[in-house]
């Protein structure tokens, strides 16, 4: 009989090893999945995890890696703050959309003027849009005790409708021959978020993600607010005893995650995506939840996890092209990763003992 025995203190070593273990288990389970789909599992794993970095066309994929990892890391860093405090913003996808709409809207309002401040203004508008959208669940939670999980998630569907309305109405490209979607911001120099170093995929969003990692690290490890966030997650009653104001924390955590998601949306719409369109959002806001957990809610962990998750996206696309692996397989693969991670997480706080049957 296998039973769990609580460790006196959470193990840090195991805590760092569990994500690696989860990735390995996912590769094994993923291989089985790919085999069921009739693909060569070794080839599939190699195509997803190896080729984009070291394979023949790696020069192309490597740039894509940062393009995909940027928004994932940016959003996941914000989410991790709230998750640490037990504040569950799962509507980052919606905040990402609204951030993009606000940022792009500001940029398009100036079209075709050419001022240096247009792009910075768009960045501010993107962050503000995300924050405002996140303030809805925050204020409902602090005022009416409404569950932020449900509200933030339901608002994603509302945001998607707004996105549709914007691409068909207000922001539609007047010169677009009636097709839905806005003007392409990449063709509007003052508003474009172009590659900073050609061929690397580094744009302002990637820079912002790195800054967010550093700031979050300092916040969580050196600042009182970060301590309060961690304390609230560990033990809400002890936090109140320590003088934490829970409502302020709800507003801060939702605001921070909304703002970062909004920024991610803006950098995406002004750069890689280029325009507001009905299918602008591709699920970064949800995948970032996996990234946050895979990084164990730790800024550096999230940095690594974001890169890994970006790899599965790119590798998935490659496998789609070369092996005909369905796109949904990668989505299931990512979901599996989160499952395995949660399953092995038990090892940080418990030891597994194999012993006699216990009545308990």
């Amino acid at each position, binding site marked *: 009989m296998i039973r769990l*025995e609580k460790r*006196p*203190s*959470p193990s840090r070593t195991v805590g760092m090893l569990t994500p690696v273990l989860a990735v390995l288990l996912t590769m094994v389970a993923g291989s089985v999945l790919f085999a069921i789909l009739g693909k060569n599992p070794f080839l599939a794993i190699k195509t997803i995890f190896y080729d984009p970095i070291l394979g023949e066309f790696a020069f192309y994929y490597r740039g894509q890696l940062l393009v995909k990892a940027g928004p994932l890391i940016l959003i996941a860093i914000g989410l991790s703050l709230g998750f640490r405090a037990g504040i569950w913003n799962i509507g980052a996808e919606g905040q990402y959309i609204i951030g993009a709409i606000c940022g792009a809207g500001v940029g398009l309002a100036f079209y075709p003027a050419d001022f240096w401040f247009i792009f910075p203004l768009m960045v501010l508008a993107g962050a503000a849009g995300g924050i405002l959208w996140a303030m809805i669940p925050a204020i409902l939670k602090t005022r009416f005790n409404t569950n932020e999980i449900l509200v933030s998630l339901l608002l994603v569907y509302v945001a998607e409708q707004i996105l549709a309305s914007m691409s068909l109405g207000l922001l539609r490209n007047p010169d677009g021959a009636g097709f839905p979607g806005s003007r392409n911001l990449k063709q509007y120099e003052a508003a474009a978020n172009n590659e900073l170093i050609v061929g690397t995929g580094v744009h302002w969003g990637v820079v912002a993600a790195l800054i967010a990692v550093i700031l979050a690290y300092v916040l969580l490890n*050196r*600042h*009182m*607010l970060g*301590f309060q966030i*961690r*304390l609230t997650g*560990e*033990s809400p*009653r*002890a*936090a*109140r*005893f*320590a*003088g934490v*104001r829970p409502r302020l924390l709800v507003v801060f955590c939702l605001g921070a995650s909304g703002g970062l998601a909004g920024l991610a949306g803006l950098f995406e719409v002004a750069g890689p995506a280029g325009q507001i369109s009905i299918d602008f959002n591709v699920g970064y806001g949800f995948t970032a939840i996996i990234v946050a957990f895979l990084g164990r809610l730790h800024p550096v962990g999230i940095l690594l996890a974001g890169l890994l998750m970006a790899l599965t996206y790119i590798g998935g696309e490659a496998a789609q092209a070369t092996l005909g692996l369905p796109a949904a397989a990668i989505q299931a693969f990512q979901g599996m990763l989160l499952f395995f991670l949660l399953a092995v997480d038990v090892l940080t*706080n418990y030891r597994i003992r194999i012993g006699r*049957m*216990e*009545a*308990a």
Partner: protein
Amino acid sequence: MTEALLTIEGLTKAYPGVVANDDVSFRIAPGEVHALLGENGAGKSTLVKMIYGLVRPDAGRMTFGGTAFEPATPHAARATGVAMVFQHFSLFEALNVAENVALGMEDPPPQRQLARRIREVSETYGLPLDPDRLVGDLSAGERQRVEIIRCLLQDPKLLIMDEPTSVLTPQEVDILFETLRKLQAEGTSILYISHKLEEIKTLCDNATILRLGKVVGECNPREESARSMAEMMVGTTLHTPSRDEKEPGEVVLDLAALSVASANPFGTSLRSIHLEVRSGEILGIGGVAGNGQDELLAALSGETPAPPEAIKFCEQEIGHLGPNARRRFGLLAAPEERLGHAAAPDMSLTENALLTGAIREQLVAGGFLRWPQAQGFAEKIIAAFDVRTPGPANAARSLSGGNLQKFVIGREILQRPACLVVNQPTWGVDASAAAAIRQALMDLAAEGAAVIVISQDLDELMEISDRFAALNEGRLSAPRAAKGLTVDEIGLMMGGAHDMEVAHVA
């Protein structure tokens, strides 16, 4: 000697790092009230869990009524005729009395019939109870009645009672003892677990004394002195706290008509509490659990806000201030629940030192944490209060109850409070740690701080308080000098027997 109802031979149960029961043997005759005596952590709970089928012994055997007895589940134990009244954790607040009773029975009758039987039994044994009321709305004493009636409805041959009097007023204890004697006269055996020696002397026929998992003695409690049993239980002679008499100083904390609604739907709201504490004195606040102790601590620590004028600290209105603003003034607190309220279980001792020490120990500068200073403060607490731990990097939950409590109390005392409020400072703490904590509280008062000790342990309060008051349904009795108070007077201050007067005749 008559045939035993329950025999226990060589029961042993080990958990990782600790042997909870080591070769424990004793026997209980039919109709006998048998005491199981021991300190917290002596292994009493593990032993009764084995008898009740919640835990399986590693070695040893039991017989019940002459046949081998190996209950694999509580259902099996109940079917054999064992019933148990728990100290904690066996009632459901959002369910009504009848549903709670039904859950503890093997084959309960339909609800309406059950309700009638509950009324019958409660009248027979003088334990009035309404089957339709929600358990969450009942007082601690009434909740215990639910548990007792749940047991009685199954006509048990052996009734196990785990620390039954810790939630009762002295008057309620008398009534409980009446009930138990009546059961005994009907032939029911009772295994009575307690660390209160006087109770065991008045009630029990035999006593088995446990220390560190082993039987260290058996005696007839009526022939022993409380002191001799205490020494068997503890193993050493106790260090009794002492301090010099001193005139109290200025009023430090002044509560005027403090009323606070409880945040918990089943909690007790505070109603118009008046109170003055002076520097250099210890005010003891007694009362049965659930009469507003947690709410009073939260109102004083600043976790629940109050009208500004209801709480005055050195003549300043502070009722509206939060915990940290109060800490700045020097009003500190240590709540009852060590893990999860006073300390965060999974965080290190350094982080837990920071938890309340950030302001007064200047562990924060411009919003940024000063880790070396925080660690220094944690080390200082560990050294000054003899906290047994490998170091400040260890998680709070890795400490034993006594050591963590020393850390929690020490953390507040080392911040030089002008007024310290503690709730249940020695609950679930071993005797030596308890003595050390009481001494530290008395030393603090001797140095001029005002101290409020909220506790359910009347002996403790009588030992260390200068004045005594009691909480009863959210109201505080007028404080009186502790010296010379009789048990009856204390009982009346605690509210006497809650609506039990009628039952007294039974």
